[in-house]
Structures are given as structure tokens and as C-alpha cells.
């Protein structure tokens, strides 16, 4: 096989390279800097690197080539890079921006040290066995991991690469680059280490499995199309040459790999355990950014490579979307732990996002002023990410003697004790529930609309039912925080029996958690997230237009 050296378009790819470069420098820091100086150096380096990459992303956006079609204006923007293995186009850049923005939030949460009394939320020494002498020693010496920063940077790099990949092999490499650091980071919790390590192991085993599926699918599709390139696959699909069975099986296996990453039913089993076990800061980062990256890849794969084969994959996604929404919402409704509830709610959100993915129509069918499926999914991701990061950031604050208190029973009455924090949490939950005047509502509106316009009204109906169920569990938490202290000294009606239940509940209330005052890192992150959700709810226009201007994927 002849090997040709690809040309690298540094002008468009440099934000990606900056992230990987910073990750490598971080590893060097880890090797050469003295331990006590690593924390500051690593965290500052990470933030700076991400900021530079974010600025670069914005700059690259302005430099993208515009691709015009007569009569429709600009339909796409961007170019293929690195020997056509990468597609730097409008949606890609939009996703880069989102990933980078919320990675910065992730780094800030990682760097929080006030909550644990001077040390970070990560284990002192991951290699020390839980409960061992070595662990006690690491703890008394106040050690904490700083390797998480380079790990995070590698993951961010993988997340940026994932939706950019324009062939199956690059996509697989990106999948691994983003996943491996995440597996590690999940196991690094300072408290409840066994739970954390178990989560990491589960995530790794299931993740490795799903990667295997993806790779197998890639091989089959290669067998069908004779190429890994999305453009070639698309061409082959359009011409209908080759063995159709290979294509269908390959497509299914690729879908398994991607649907696992986004946490769609029936590949959602890892979500609650991993979200619960991982250090909450990691969960916040992972929940938001992995979903952004994986949906970018999913969209590109199905819209670009298999776009002509829509009639074959749409029924499959219909079923998966319906199952995901219902299972996510119903399972979330029976949880008694905040982190697990949020995990299942993220499954439900995956379902809502898939509803948007289903809203794709052939280019001619969409009116010029109408919102497109891609635009709606991009916007939904933009509203989902701040709400997720914000809620998990707040979860890190609510603590009792044993660290973070995530059981519902301990959140009772939080609204009376810390109205501001509970109010922010309630607001973010309302956004996730899709109540108007929040970003979540506009996001939900847009994905439902495109699906309805594409004729997928049964899915939209199920989505509405799932929304009603999800309202229930979000509102129940708000209820718990604000109204759990029913004043029983007031008029009670013994006959109705309603009052009585409340009385016992009040008496049995166990020790509750309180809000620990965080440093500016966490509180700033929360404030920015809440602000974003408010803005996206009140003036969604600019971001919607930005997502619309991104245009279509290029091939």
C-alpha cells in the first residue's frame, strides 16, 4: 500500500493541536515539576490552553470558506483537512466551541479545593489501595492528583476530534482518545473510592465492548463501500452497489458504538453507576462534553455517510428514541439519589436529542426560513450543557459529614437553609424539564418542531408524554427542597388523612445536608451556567442563528 504524506492545514486545525500540545506539556510538567508546584501550574496551563483554543475556534469560524448554492445562499462552510480525514465545517466549529467552553468549566470544578478543606476532590494517590496504610499517608500529607489535567486535555482533544472525523478510522481513534482518559478519571474520587473504582471498571469494560462493536461495524462498512471515507461511503450507498447485508449490519454496529457513548437505551446501563461513582466534577464535565462530542459524531455519521440510506436507519432510531425517552424518564422518577436521578434524566435527554436527529429532511423539503434538524440538535446541546454542568456543580456543594450528600432525604428543606443555591438548582432543573423562559424550553421546542415537520409525530407524542413524566421528578426535587417543612401546627385535617402523612415524614426526617461555601471557581461556574440558561431562554436568537449559520456538514 502506497503511503502519501498528507498535508496538514495548520491554519484551521491549530485549536485542536493546541489542546493536544497542552496535554503533552502537562505530562511533562508532571514529570519534571516538584509536587507542590504542580497544582497551580497544571490548572493554569489547562485553563490557558483551553482559552487559547476557544479563541482560536472563534477565529477559525470567521475564516471558513463559504459554500454557496444558487438560490439558497450559503448552505455550508468549511473545508476538508489532513488528507480528507478531517472535516472542519460550521457544525464542527460550533461543537468545538461548546466542548471547549464547558471543558473550561470542568477545569474550574477540578481545581476547587475549598470544599474538601484544602485538597481537591481527587484521590491522594490512586495507586494506594482503599483503606490501606499508603492511602492514609497520602491523605495526611495532603497529596492530590494533578494528572487529571493532562488527562482532561487529552479527553477534550478526543472530543474535538470526534465530530471532526471524516472517516471511520479517524472517528474510532477519536473515540478511544476521548474515552480512555475518562475511564481513568472516573476512578479517582477521594471519597467512596470503591464505588468510584467500580464505576471506572464498569465504564471501561462496557466501553471497550462498544468500541469493539464500532470497529467491527467499521470493518463491515469498509467491506461494503471499499473505503473508510464518509464521502465514498455516501457515494456507494447512493449507487446501491455492494452487498446490502454488510451495509445494514455495519451500520447497526457503528450505531451501537455511538449510542453507547450518548447513553441511549438499550446501551444506557453504565450511565447511573458511572455518573454516581465518578467524582462529581468529572461527572459534570463528562455528562456535558461527551454528549456534545458523541452527538456531533452521530450526526455526521448518519447525515453524511448514511444520508442516502435514511429509510433504513430512521426506523431504528425511532424505536431507540422512544425507548430512551420513556426508560430514562420512568427510571429517573423512581430514583432516591440526586446523582442517579440526574444520570437517568441525561438518558431521557439523549432521547430528546435523538428526536431532533430524526427531524432530518431532504434539503429541498426544508423552507429557507425553517429551522433544520442539525440546527435544532446543536442548539439543544448548547442548552443542555450549561444546565448539566450547573446542576452537578451544585451537587458538589451539598455536603454532610461524609462528603457530598446525594440522597434525596438529605436535601429536604435545603430551600429554607440556602435559598440561593436551592433556587439556582431548582431553576436549572426547570430548564431541564423544559419550562418556558429557560433555555431548555427553547431547545425542546426546536427538536420537537423539526421532528414534527419531518412527519415523525408519533415520536413527538411520546416525547411529550416523556416530558410530562420528567416534569414530575424534577419538580419533586424542588418540592423536597422548598416545601418539605410543612408547618403541622396549622390547621390539620385528620379525616382526610393528607395531613397525617406529612407529619410522620417530618418527624422521621434524618440528618440533613448543608451547603458548603465554595471558592470562586465553583460559584463562578454555577453563576455562569445559570446566566447562560437564562439568556438562552430569553434571547435564544443569536445562538440559534449561529447554529443556523453553521450550515450543513460538508463531505
Amino acid at each position, binding site marked *: 500500500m502506497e503511503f502519501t504524506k498528507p498535508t496538514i492545514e495548520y491554519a484551521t486545525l491549530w485549536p485542536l493541536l493546541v489542546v493536544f500540545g497542552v496535554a503533552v506539556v502537562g505530562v511533562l510538567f508532571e514529570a519534571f515539576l516538584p509536587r507542590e508546584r504542580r497544582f497551580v501550574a497544571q490548572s493554569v496551563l489547562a485553563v490557558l490552553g483551553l482559552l487559547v483554543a476557544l479563541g482560536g475556534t472563534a477565529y477559525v469560524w470567521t475564516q471558513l470558506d463559504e459554500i454557496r448554492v444558487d438560490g439558497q445562499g450559503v448552505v455550508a462552510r468549511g473545508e476538508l483537512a489532513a488528507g480528507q480525514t478531517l472535516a472542519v465545517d460550521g457544525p464542527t466549529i460550533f461543537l468545538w466551541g461548546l466542548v471547549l467552553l464547558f471543558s473550561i468549566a470542568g477545569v474550574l470544578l477540578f481545581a476547587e479545593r475549598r470544599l474538601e478543606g484544602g485538597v481537591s476532590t481527587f484521590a491522594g494517590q490512586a495507586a494506594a489501595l482503599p483503606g490501606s496504610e499508603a492511602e492514609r499517608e497520602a491523605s495526611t500529607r495532603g497529596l492530590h492528583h494533578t494528572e487529571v489535567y493532562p488527562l482532561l486535555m487529552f479527553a477534550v482533544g478526543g472530543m474535538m476530534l470526534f465530530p471532526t472525523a471524516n472517516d471511520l478510522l479517524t472517528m474510532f481513534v477519536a473515540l478511544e482518545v476521548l474515552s480512555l482518559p475518562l475511564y481513568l478519571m472516573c476512578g479517582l474520587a477521594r471519597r467512596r473510592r470503591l464505588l468510584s473504582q467500580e464505576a471506572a471498571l464498569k465504564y471501561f469494560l462496557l466501553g471497550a465492548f462498544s468500541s469493539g462493536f464500532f470497529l467491527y461495524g467499521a470493518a463491515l462498512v469498509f467491506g461494503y463501500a471499499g473505503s473508510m471515507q464518509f464521502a465514498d461511503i455516501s457515494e456507494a450507498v447512493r449507487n446501491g452497489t455492494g452487498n446490502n447485508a454488510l451495509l445494514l449490519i455495519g451500520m447497526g454496529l457503528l450505531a451501537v458504538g455511538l449510542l453507547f457513548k450518548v447513553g441511549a437505551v438499550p446501551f444506557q446501563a453504565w450511565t447511573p453507576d458511572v455518573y454516581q461513582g465518578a467524582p462529581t466534577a468529572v461527572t459534570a464535565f463528562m455528562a456535558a462534553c461527551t454528549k456534545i462530542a458523541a452527538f456531533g459524531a452521530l450526526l455526521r455519521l448518519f447525515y453524511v455517510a448514511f444520508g442516502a440510506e435514511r429509510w433504513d436507519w430512521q426506523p431504528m432510531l425511532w424505536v431507540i428514541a422512544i425507548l430512551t425517552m420513556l426508560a430514562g424518564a420512568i427510571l429517573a422518577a423512581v430514583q432516591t439519589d440526586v446523582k442517579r436521578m440526574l444520570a437517568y434524566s441525561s438518558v431521557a435527554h439523549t432521547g430528546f436529542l435523538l428526536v431532533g436527529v430524526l427531524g432530518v429532511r431532504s434539503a429541498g423539503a426544508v*423552507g*429557507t*426560513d*425553517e*429551522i433544520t434538524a442539525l*440546527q435544532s440538535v446543536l442548539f439543544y446541546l448548547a442548552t443542555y450543557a450549561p444546565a448539566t454542568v450547573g446542576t452537578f456543580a451544585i451537587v458538589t456543594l451539598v455536603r454532610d459529614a461524609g462528603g457530598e450528600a446525594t440522597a434525596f432525604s438529605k436535601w429536604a428543606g435545603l430551600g429554607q437553609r440556602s435559598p440561593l443555591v436551592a433556587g439556582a438548582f431548582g431553576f436549572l432543573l*426547570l430548564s431541564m*424539564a423544559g*419550562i*418556558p*423562559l429557560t433555555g431548555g*424550553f*427553547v431547545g*425542546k*421546542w*426546536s427538536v*420537537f*418542531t423539526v421532528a*414534527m*415537520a419531518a412527519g415523525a409525530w408519533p415520536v*413527538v*407524542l411520546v416525547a*411529550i408524554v416523556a*416530558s*410530562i413524566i420528567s*416534569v*414530575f421528578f424534577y*419538580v*419533586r426535587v424542588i*418540592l423536597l427542597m*422548598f*416545601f*418539605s417543612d*410543612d*408547618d*403541622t401546627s*396549622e*390547621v*390539620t*385535617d385528620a379525616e*382526610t388523612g*393528607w*395531613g397525617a402523612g*406529612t*407529619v410522620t415524614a417530618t418527624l422521621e426526617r434524618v440528618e440533613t445536608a448543608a451547603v458548603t461555601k465554595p471558592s470562586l471557581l465553583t460559584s463562578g461556574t454555577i453563576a455562569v451556567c445559570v446566566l447562560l440558561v437564562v439568556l438562552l431562554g430569553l434571547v*435564544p*436568537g443569536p445562538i*440559534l*442563528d449561529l447554529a*443556523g449559520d453553521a450550515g450543513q456538514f460538508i463531505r
Partner: protein
Amino acid sequence: MNDFPLLTLLWVVPLVGALAVAFGPRGALAKQTAVVVSLLTLVVGVVVATQFDRGTDGFQLTETHEWIGAFGVHYALGLDGLGLLLVLLTVALVPVVLVAAWNDAPDDTARQFYAWALALEALSLVVFLATDVFLFYVVFEATLIPAYFLIGGFGRAGRSAAALKFLMFQLGGGLVLLGSVIGLYVVSAQAGSPSYLLTDLQQVDMSTSAERWLFAGFFIAFAIKAPLFPVHTWLADTTERATPATSVLLVCVLDKIGTFGMLRFCLGLFPGASEWATPLVIALALISIVYGAFIAIGQDDLLRLIGLTSLSHFGFITLGIFVFTAQGASGSILYMVNHGVATAALFLIAGFVIKRRGTSRISQMGGLEKVTPVSAGLFLVAGLATAGLPGLSQFVSEILVLISAFDYRWYVGAIAVTGIVLAAIYVLWAYQRIFTGPNPSVLQADVVAADGSSDPEMRQRVADLGRREIGVLVPLVAALVLFGFYPMPLLDVSNPFSESLLQQTGVTDDGPRVPVEAQEAGR
């Protein structure tokens, strides 16, 4: 003055007031601020009314700005006859409610109550003013948040469960409505460029089946809101657990959005489907009228009783809307206003009485007439207004609706009339059990047991209404009497609206027109 965004000012004033109360000073000052703000809003409302030209139909004082271009959504406000009456009802009732709730909660939490109440007022006003369906939907749903906190935060034990039930019903309806709102976008996008402006949507031609589906979504949401049988079950629990002041805001202002929406959106956007659904809707309305009255008779909890009477009244309002005559529509609009005033008075008096008696159980009251004649008298006036006694305002609206109902089908009218008979029973029987009869010794024992030796408290418990309480009730009762004898100002505003609405729906009004003057003479 023409370009001044008067309608925006109308909702911004209470919203800013809500924020000021929420984050401003604590204690009595917060309450005073809230009342001043609500009075300011009332002033703005009156100014709006003076700017309103009653002769012309269509929206006035309009403001239109693009909000979300990608969705064809505008920030568009406008006022027509229907909107004006409900706006005035809202701005007039809120100050009354705020003063009535003065001692409902301790000072530190009272601030929250006042802030949420003002927020609810602001959002409700936008609902009545919105001329863009998306904007309407957004605020329609957003009103639930303050309402939820008002129910869950203040009131009696079991209120948090009631709040949850309330919210689940309302949001369920809201999400069904969301389906229809999205459908409207799709329909309007297919017809050209997507737009949510009412004026644009009325031009859109939609297929019969699409129209019926969209209508169903809107109607279900409004039926839950109003409420109608069989989706009324949240109403009784909510009114029982919430404070009377909250109930006034909910039943007299917020629930009007349901019937308001039926007029503006169901009839305005989907006239064909509305006509198609008429038999079912009228059946539901009749069931609500009779069933609501029957179960109201059986209630032992005073607040629950009043809540359920509203089910019956909302049945009347819906009936008037769906008989498709200008007269019926006008009657319904009038009914909304009159029901708001009468029920508000009833709820507030009931609250005052319950506070004195320490119980809301009708069976444990009795004989209050002798001790508190003023509250007894006012209760009777408000109650009889609810029951449709001639000379009090609700009679006029009831008769308009009933005439239209008889015109539509004689048996519809006949069934509806029984609602009035039953109303007399639930009002008078409740009055009898609460206020008449021997002054029970329980009353005395209660006071002593609750209070021991402390005199002033004891006196307050059995004392008649204080000056603040009477001051709150007088304007309401005055309105009941005034509009009972002189409903013209209201009809002048509602008639042009109803006529243009029905013209636009293309339904010929072939019922015999009974001039309003004749009715007044005949009364």
C-alpha cells in the same frame, strides 16, 4: 403618547415590583411596597383603559418586535375588548388580594408571598395581552411557577402535595398544548414563512384534520386550566390547601386564561374545528355545571366548596362560548369578570371567617350571624351573587348565556338552568350552617381552650370584621351591585369583540337578538 409602550409598562411594573419585594427590605415595608406597586399597576391599567377605543375591533395599542427570528416568534402585544376586561379584572383584584393577605403569613415569609403574587400578576397580564402564540405559550406556562410556589409555600398542611398535583395537571395540559403550538409552526411553515403572529396564523389555510388535531391540543390545555369536567380534580385540593388569597389569584385570575384561550385561540384560529367539537364541549360544560354544583353541595370544607362552585361557573362560561352566538360570547366574557369579583369576595370572606373559627369545617361552625353580622351579611351578598340573584352582577351574564343556550337547543338551556337552582342550594345551605342557628357553646370553649387568659386574642377571634377586612370587601361588593344594575360599560367593551369574533369565524348569528336594554328593563 402613541408610541409609548404602554402595554409593556403594564406588566413591567408588577414584575419590577416583584423583584424589589423579593430582594428588597424585609418585614412590613415589603408588604407596603407590594401594595403600592399593585396600586401603581392598577393606575397603569386604568390609563390603558382610557386609551382604548371601544368603537373599533381588532387589536389596539399594539407593539411588535421580532424576538426569535429562527422560529418566526415575535414579542407582540395588543389589546382588544376581551383582553381589556380581563386586564382590568386582574389589576383590580391583585391589590385587594394583597391587602386581604396582610396577616396571612409571618413577616419573614410574607415577603415571598407578595413577590410571587406580583410575579403572577405580571405574567398573567402578558397572557391576556399576547398576540403571538409562542409568546402566549411561554407566559402561559411560566405563570405556573409563581402559582406553584404560592400554593406550596403558604396554606395548610398537605399543601405541597396539592401543589404537586396542581403542577402536574397544568404542565400536562401545557405539554399537550406544546404539541399543538409546534404543529402550528409546521402548518404555517408549509404555507410560506413560519410566523406565530395571530394575524398571520388566521390567514393560514389548514387541512380539516390538521385543524382538528391542533384544536384538540389547545382545548385540552384550556379545559384543564379552566377547569372542566373531567380534568377538574386538581381544583378542589388546591383551593382547600392554599390560602384564600392564593385561591383568589388562581381561580379568579389564572383560571380565566382557560376560557380566555378558548375564545381567542380555539374560536379565533380553529373556527371550523370548534364547531365540529361543539356537541362534546357542550356536553362537558353541562356536566361541569350540574356535577360541580352537586358536589359543591356535599362539601364540608368551606374552601373546597367555593372551589367546586367555580367548576359549575366555568361550565357556564364554556357553554356561552361554544353556543356560537355573539350574545353567548358576550355573556361569557361578562361572566368571567363577574365570577372573578363574586368568587374573590366569597373566598376572602371565607378566609376571614375560618381565621376566626379556627376551622374550615362547615359542620363545626354555626351561629356566627349573631356574633359577626357584618361578615354574615357580606357572605350572603357575595354568595347570592354567585347564585345569580337578579340585581347582582352575575345574573346579567348568566341570563345572557342561558338565553343563548335555549336558542341553541332548548334542552341544553333546560339542563343549564338547573345549575342555578343548585347554586341557590349550595349557597344558602352553607350560609345556614355557618351563620345561623344557636350560637354553639363550642365557640366559647374553643376560644378559651385556644387562648387561656389572653383577652385581646380571644376578642379578635369572635370579633366581627376589622376595618382592613371590610375595606377589602367593600369595593368587591360595590362592583357586584353596580354591574348588577348597570352592566353597560362591560357590555360596550365585550359586544364589539364578540361580534367581530363570530363574523370572523364565519358563523351566522341567526338567533333572535335580545337587545341588552330590553333585558335590563325586563329584570
